[in-house]
């Protein structure tokens, strides 16, 4: 198979090139996408003239409105490039056709567009749904051309973003959740604008990116995270700079159709098109939104009384004597003689202090319009969204200007400009246990006050300092800490399209992106536990960080498109893409400024200040050729090939195309489809509107292998104050891209006049040459070398069903999509890979799935000492001495039977990958009312609840959940909860299935009620009032704040609840006014 693939791509390349050139030479008249819309009048004239030449066969029929059955007049029915007719009052049309195998195109304003095959019939009736109906006839906006979806031989999903005015606070990735079968979108956290981790059809890489390629208005949109935020668990999400309301449509390519993007296509491609004027009339839309964010439910933790009781029991297991414990002032309830009485007798609900309900608001203006020379789309927006962590918010200013210019009859220009600026106030999240307010709020002792309290109980307005248990005051972090992230992105592109002749166009697009992120942080001394540096204690900390990206993109291609004898349609492209990127990050850290008032790096001690940065430059060159062919619009064939070069590839890569000493990846793909429903033998199967069988195969690649991993580089090193350079890596000049061979078998079915649509896809992604970090001998001075030594196979299926359940005055569309995948490691160095994150261990083992949780299996606890003695299991303490488990300890499975519970007894205890994910969508409309609801679900994924691990480990001063009240206390006590033990010597809280929970959930992701006021002959055309809800209800057994989170886009952080801001419920009211 592999050999075939290699041969195949080398053969395909010249074939395509020759075809393209040949076609250019034979260019002759036909329709092109660029030809101006044929007006009805012209068409009828043409028809009259032609009919005068020759009497053709005629087709007649009625066009009706689907839900009312009423005839629609003024519908344009045409045979492309041949004839057209208009329906009369009764919906009747009559049309001459070249033969009875053609396809009729039915278009009407306010209704969907349909393309129906005659299949030998002489009359064809059709009923049309309203505009915006999700249909197989929708245009899919593909990288090189637009085509109705039913003609595309690839697994493509196209989304009409009609609901984008009612999903105001969503980033585009979050919006994609539940929209496409096979696209799994897991939002990173509830932090506004943070976006989501998107995997199309599972993952295809271990260490490189698994994120799809985003192409916005034809220009590759860099969405990678380079550099690292100073704020814990925060990531810069460039996609948040695209306002959802600016998006006209989104197309997702899931299979080998992405091969045209060569080594950037292995994770799928998401094509986004932003506002364009659909008509020349000036349309002004203005939206005002305001809403309320609800703080999540608190994690139940012990109150002050319960906590003290628990603590007194826990301290018994420490080295303190009973008298020392009883003497602790927080256990002393005597006001007299206890100076600390007031200080330690509060009952503070820290979570209520740290989390709060908050507000969001959004103003948005969109203007589209133009004339026959130029059309434009313009938008302006302002958004302010407060987070649920006290003091956090996101402010965004955004503008976009898109224009289409008809310079001459043959010369068009397209300009897209956008600028977005974000100012965000953040707080640390994730495993930053000294400064994560959410974590601190859960674990901090409830008997303490957030303010300083004196011996007499008088409360100061000053926040209290680090407490006696060495826990930070979360309010200090919130009020005196600073985490500011100011960023902006400018994206501009300009394209020229030249119509060489009626079949051939040449076009070129140049895009420029400039992106800058500037972060400032300050962590105060008072109230925050100090940090330990290599040579000092850091009392307060400041940081300043700038990251910049400058990229230039060019896509130039020549297109040849022609229909031969109305039977063969050919559309070929030959093009070149070039992408130059320059990135730089600069980081300064300061420590120990004189007071907490000096918050900048320059205020820190000179000796401790550190400055560092990175530079990353990389280029990408992509030569591509494509040919789309169809016969009778029944048989579709698509061939693509891309030849990719990148500055990242090694110079000594084997099995690669070499041009001028540089290595190129050759990525061919082929897609074929058979529209069975257009065959004559299907003419009588009236229930079947559309039946299409698709198959595609191709190679795609991933070039996210590190800018300089293939090269030898040096890094600076400070040794006793002397600067020098040391080797930074072991170069691997043979390093190459990752390759994913994608196979897809799909079936599209549309029944009962499109009332029921089904899509089914089976896929197999075979990834090889995956980037791996291979351990090297210690003598080398390095830990690992980067190689192409991994492989995996991901198989799965996507399924979509859309139905119009009610099609009367009340219209109800219901849709369900789900997808599942399962992967298998086919190659990994040493046959085994272990990765750690937040105390969790992942195993990636040959023949098994990637990133499975790997830990200990527990089976209750020893309720009796005799039981523990009989079991005879021991653990090794930190001195290496074998200590027997005792009553109250967890019974861990002794896998190897050596009676010692150690690392060898670990096994797979969970899988962070879901069995399947999907969504149920509902759209109900009645007169001027409409109601939309989207339910998303994820089933069968396991979650490691790190938070609960801390909150139920019973080993330190951290506050715990009330679950620990059930802890084992005395021999024979019947309970499942182990004993409290200071420092957890027996490892009862170790990474085990005790903390693995089901992350399955079903969530009412969004719901909108919309009322549409229309005004006749007024300045205001319409006003739409929205009542919207986000994350309204979530049904889950998961105990953490929220089952949906993703600590990063990396594979080996998935499914670990490390303490991120949870998703929260939002309710918004909005008005959209149309002028």
């Amino acid at each position, binding site marked *: 198979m592999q050999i075939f693939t290699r041969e195949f791509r080398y053969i395909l390349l010249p074939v395509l090139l020759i075809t393209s050139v040949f076609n250019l030479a034979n260019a002759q008249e036909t329709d092109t996408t660029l030809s101006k819309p044929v007006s009805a009048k012209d068409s009828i004239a043409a028809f009259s003239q032609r009919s005068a030449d020759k009497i053709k066969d005629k087709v007649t029929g009625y066009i009706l409105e689907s839900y009312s059955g009423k005839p629609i007049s003024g519908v344009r029915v045409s045979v492309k490039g041949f004839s057209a007719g208009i329906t009369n009052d009764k919906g009747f049309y009559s049309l001459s056709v070249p033969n009875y195998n053609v396809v009729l195109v039915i278009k009407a304003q306010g209704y969907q567009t349909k393309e129906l095959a005659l299949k030998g019939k002489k009359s064809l009736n059709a009923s049309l749904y309203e505009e915006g109906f999700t249909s197989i006839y929708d245009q899919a906006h593909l990288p090189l051309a637009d085509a109705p979806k039913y003609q595309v031989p690839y697994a493509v999903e196209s989304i009409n973003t009609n609901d984008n005015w009612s999903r105001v606070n969503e980033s585009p990735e979050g919006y994609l959740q539940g929209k496409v079968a096979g696209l799994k979108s897991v939002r990173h956290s509830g932090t506004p604008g943070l976006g989501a981790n998107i995997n199309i059809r599972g993952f295809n890489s271990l260490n490189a990116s698994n994120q799809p390629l985003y192409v916005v208005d034809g220009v590759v949109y860099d969405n990678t995270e380079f550099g690292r935020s100073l704020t814990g668990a925060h990531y810069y999400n460039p996609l948040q700079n695209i306002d959802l309301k600016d998006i006209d449509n989104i197309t997702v390519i899931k299979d080998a159709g992405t091969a045209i993007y060569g080594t950037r296509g292995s994770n799928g491609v998401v094509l986004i098109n932003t506002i364009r004027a659909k008509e020349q009339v000036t349309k002004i839309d203005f939206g005002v939104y305001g809403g309320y964010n609800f703080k999540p439910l608190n994690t139940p933790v012990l109150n002050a009384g319960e906590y003290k009781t628990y603590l*007194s*029991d826990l301290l018994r297991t420490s080295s303190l004597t009973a008298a020392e*414990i009883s003497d602790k002032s927080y256990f002393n309830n005597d006001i007299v003689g206890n100076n600390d009485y007031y200080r330690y007798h509060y009952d503070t609900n820290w979570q209520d202090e740290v989390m709060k309900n908050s507000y969001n608001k959004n103003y948005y203006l969109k203007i589209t319009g133009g004339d026959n020379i130029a059309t434009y789309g313009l938008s302006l927006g302002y958004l302010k969204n407060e987070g649920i962590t006290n003091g956090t918010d996101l402010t965004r200013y955004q503008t976009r200007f898109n224009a289409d210019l008809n310079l001459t009859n043959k010369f068009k220009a397209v300009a897209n400009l956008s600028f977005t600026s974000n100012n965000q106030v953040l707080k640390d999240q994730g495993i930053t246990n000294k400064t994560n307010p959410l974590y601190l709020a859960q674990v901090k002792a409830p008997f303490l006050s957030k303010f300083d309290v004196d011996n007499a109980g008088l409360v100061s307005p000053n926040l209290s300092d680090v407490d006696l248990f060495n826990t930070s005051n979360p309010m200090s972090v919130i009020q005196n800490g600073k985490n500011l992230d100011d960023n902006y992105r400018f994206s501009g592109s300009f394209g020229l399209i030249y119509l060489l002749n009626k079949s051939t166009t040449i076009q070129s697009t140049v895009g420029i992106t400039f992106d800058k992120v500037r972060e400032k942080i300050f962590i105060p001394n008072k109230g925050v536990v100090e940090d330990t540096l290599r040579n000092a204690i850091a009392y307060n900390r400041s940081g300043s960080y700038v990251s910049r990206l400058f990229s230039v993109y060019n896509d130039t291609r020549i297109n040849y498109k022609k229909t031969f004898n109305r039977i063969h349609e050919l559309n070929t492209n030959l093009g070149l893409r070039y992408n130059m990127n320059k990135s730089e990050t600069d980081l300064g850290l300061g420590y120990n400024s004189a007071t907490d008032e000096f918050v900048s790096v320059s205020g820190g001690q000179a000796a401790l200040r550190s400055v560092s940065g990175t530079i990353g430059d990389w280029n990408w060159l992509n030569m591509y050729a494509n040919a789309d062919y169809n016969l009778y619009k029944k048989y579709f064939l698509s061939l693509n090939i891309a030849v990719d070069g990148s500055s990242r590839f090694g110079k000594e890569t084997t099995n690669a195309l070499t041009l001028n000493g540089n290595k190129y990846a050759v990525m061919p793909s082929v897609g074929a489809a058979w529209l069975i429903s257009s065959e004559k033998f299907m003419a009588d199967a009236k229930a079947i509107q559309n039946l299409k069988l698709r198959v595609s195969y191709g190679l795609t690649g991933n070039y996210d292998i590190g800018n300089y991993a293939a090269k030898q580089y040096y890094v600076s090193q400070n040794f006793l104050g002397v600067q020098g350079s040391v080797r930074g890596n072991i170069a691997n000049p043979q390093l190459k891209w990752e390759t994913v061979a994608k196979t897809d078998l799909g079936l599209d079915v549309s029944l009962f006049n499109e009332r029921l649509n089904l899509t089914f896809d089976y896929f197999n992604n075979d990834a090889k040459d995956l980037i791996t970090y291979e351990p090297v001998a210690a003598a080398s001075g390095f830990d690992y070398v980067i190689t192409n030594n991994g492989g995996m196979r991901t198989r799965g299926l996507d399924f979509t069903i859309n139905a119009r*359940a009610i099609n009367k005055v009340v219209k109800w569309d*219901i849709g369900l999509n789900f997808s599942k995948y399962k992967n298998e490691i086919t190659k990994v160095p040493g046959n085994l890979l272990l990765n750690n994150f937040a105390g969790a261990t992942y195993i990636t083992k040959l023949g098994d799935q990637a990133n499975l949780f790997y830990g200990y299996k527990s089976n209750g606890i020893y309720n009796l000492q005799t039981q523990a003695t009989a079991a005879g299991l021991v653990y090794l303490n930190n001195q290496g001495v074998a200590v027997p488990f005792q*009553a109250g300890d967890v019974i861990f499975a002794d896998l190897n039977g050596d009676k010692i519970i150690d690392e060898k007894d670990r096994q797979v205890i969970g899988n962070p990958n879901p069995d399947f994910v999907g969504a149920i969508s509902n759209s109900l409309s009645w007169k001027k009312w409409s109601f939309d609801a989207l339910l998303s679900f994820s089933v069968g994924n396991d979650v490691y609840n790190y938070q609960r691990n801390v909150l139920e480990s019973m080993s330190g001063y951290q506050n715990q*959940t009330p679950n620990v009240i059930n802890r084992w*206390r005395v021999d024979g006590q*019947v309970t499942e909860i182990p004993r409290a033990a200071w420092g957890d010597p027996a490892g009862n809280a170790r990474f085990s299935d005790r903390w693995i929970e089901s992350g399955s959930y079903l969530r*009412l992701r969004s719901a909108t009620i919309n009322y549409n006021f229309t005004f006749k002959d007024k300045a205001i055309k319409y006003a739409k009032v929205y009542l919207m809800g986000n994350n309204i209800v979530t049904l889950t057994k998961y105990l953490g704040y929220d089952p949906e989170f993703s600590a990063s886009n990396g594979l080996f952080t998935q499914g670990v609840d490390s303490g991120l801001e949870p998703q929260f419920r939002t309710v918004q009211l909005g008005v959209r006014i149309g002028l």
Partner: protein
Amino acid sequence: MINIFKKQHQFIMLFMALAFMLSSCKKWDQHNETTDIYLNQGLLKEINGNPALSLFSKYLAQTGYDTVLLASKSFTVWAPDNIALAAVDPQILNDAVKLKALIGNHISNLSFYTTEPKPSLRVKMLNNKNVIFTSAKFDDAKIIIGNQSFGNGVLHIVDKAIIPQLNIWEYLNTSGTGEIQKEELLSLNYSLRDVTKSEIIGYDQVTGNPIYKPGVGVFNWNRYLKVNDISNEDSLYTYIILTDQAFNDQKTKLAPYFLTDIATISDSLTKYNVIKDLAIKGVYDKNSLPSQIYSTKDSVIYQLDKNAIISTYKASNGVVFVMNRIDYDMVSKIKPVIIQGESGYTLQASKTVQTRTRRNSLDPTSPLYNSYFKDLLIENHGTSGFWVKYNATLKAVKYKVYFRAVRDFTLTPATGKTDLDYFRTRIAFNTSAATELLYSEKVGVIANSNGTFSPNYDEVYAGEYTVAKYGTMGVYLVANTVTTNGLNSLLLDYIKLVPVP
């Protein structure tokens, strides 16, 4: 078909929406549900609700311990049942102070389960007394029902009320035995003003000193208790009370060693020394006394005879033996005296003095190589009979005099000689000229049979000296009577005086 589906679906949707609302709130409740209902219940509620503990519950309310038990921390209650409490002397029950002490003697902070004593635990009760707790017993009471866990602690039901015991100091002050001993102990009381806790009511017009409010800021304490705190509930002593007769016997026995010129001082010293070493760490059983027992602090070696014990009292912080006779090793009582060479009092004249830190062995393989001592070295002083004076408090007894000097330098003879130049040194008492003890010749050196020399790490006997009166005395280290450098060096690790009673 679609229509039917639709209707059901609407209904299902509504139902599901409601179900979500409810279930999402309940997930934690289920997880945190208390498996044992008692764990959500306070101790007091259980005690008040248990009919077998109605008396204890009543007394809790009377003594105010009921509110204490409501506090949010852990307690352990060893509750005597009604039968047990009915057996308690009504005199105690009717006395509010005694009752409070009694009830407080059954409650402790923190949780104690019967699995914890291995084999026994001394648990501090809320009345500040410690009670011995074993896996089956609470002091003498049997645990009928143990280890009942509640929200704020543990309940054990016991079959006997444990009357709080006096501690040794309290017993001594109230028992009426050992009156002379008690009188002597009380004579060591003193009072002290803590200025920070005192209240100034005015200033003396003449001296300007503050005048304090009487009775405020003055603390009473006892010098004996500072050393052996037999009043501390957390300590554990075996304490000997001497009958008056035995006390007088001891006084007679010790009097010669504390002879001074002033009779009252001699008397006082003797009496103090009689009582000084009567506390022994730990609790000893009268019937299984070891042959040697060491007193606290000064480690006097006792050989206690159980027949001399005329009564025993089990105190809350130990045991008291009332004895009519005690036997001990006199050397351990009056103690050898060690005078460190480097801690001299004065010199004959100002000279350069070296205080050296030396190894106890020059052989790196010896375990002694890493142990050290400090000594004194005075060289090249050029004075004949140069001396160093030390002060020592000596008892009126005959002492055997030893000294240790380690000469670990210049151990090869000078060129042309076969023998070393030695440091002749002698020790003198009272005056430097005293000659009871003779010169030691080859100080700090051992002459080996092969003609080489080694440092002498052993003590060397210098003679005997009898001290006539108890008191501080000058002890001199006197150099050779030559002025030649190298022949009159003074070298000393220590002088040891061992009494010969």
